């Protein structure tokens, strides 16, 4: 392990908080999705750091599974953005505040 695990965890926590701030404060749906991406990458960094700390392959395998999950999440979410834009003509998150039915 080249650096202590605590430093990896601190870096991942900082990245996660930035992603959380992006997801909470921005109003465009695209920027909210980018914030979610940043948070998922912070989780991946924690997993690789844990894999290096315990010298096991499990963390890296989990990162690859996380990539597949992220790809499917992004595909559905971007299709949803496309649909909402088609339906409402905007992607400001504040506009989607009522439900039908």
């Amino acid at each position, binding site marked *: 392990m080249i650096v202590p695990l605590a430093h990896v965890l601190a870096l991942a926590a900082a*990245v996660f908080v930035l992603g959380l701030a992006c997801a909470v404060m921005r109003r465009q749906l695209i920027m909210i999705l980018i914030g979610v991406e940043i948070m998922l990458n912070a989780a991946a960094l924690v997993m690789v750091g844990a894999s290096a700390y315990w010298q096991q*392959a499990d963390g*890296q395998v989990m990162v690859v599974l996380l990539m597949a999950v992220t790809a499917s999440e992004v*595909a559905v979410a971007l299709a949803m953005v*496309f649909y909402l834009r088609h339906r409402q003509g905007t992607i400001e998150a504040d506009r989607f505040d009522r439900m039908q039915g």
Partner: protein
Amino acid sequence: MASILFYILGFVMLAAILLCVTCRNPVYAVIYLVKALFALALLFYLLGAPLVAAWQVIVYVGAIMVLFLFIIMILELAPRERPEDLNRRRWVPGLLVASAILGCTLLIIFQDPDAAAQGSAYFLGPRDFGAALFGRYALAVEVVSFQLLFAAVGAYYLGRYRPRRRGGEDLP
């Protein structure tokens, strides 16, 4: 040496993500996120995960971020820029981040290419990685492949062509 590179890349990644979060234009935000992901791939390599680093570049940057750019450009979400907005000073942060990442990459390449194989630090080669992925975690791979199929079907269902009704409301 590797630990110094780790801290430099960590700061570069934080700076790129900060620029990404505060960017007004979504295209610039995605590009800064791509730079942050490059730095993260180098961090993965330094932590002994070369295959995950390669997939980070191929899958994340090459597929997912390009999908973001596709959607931004299809929906024309980026604000229109006038020519006088494109001054020199806007190049500076992007150029700094990119040159830092390039410098770290060259340092890793030229410093000691064989150090990883000598086993001083943890280093998981593709063979052991594949054995773990398709041995113990074969069931998880199957489940994830099902999930990718469902996501593809769902994305197709959401994005299919809908003729508009006259009142502006979509057909169900």
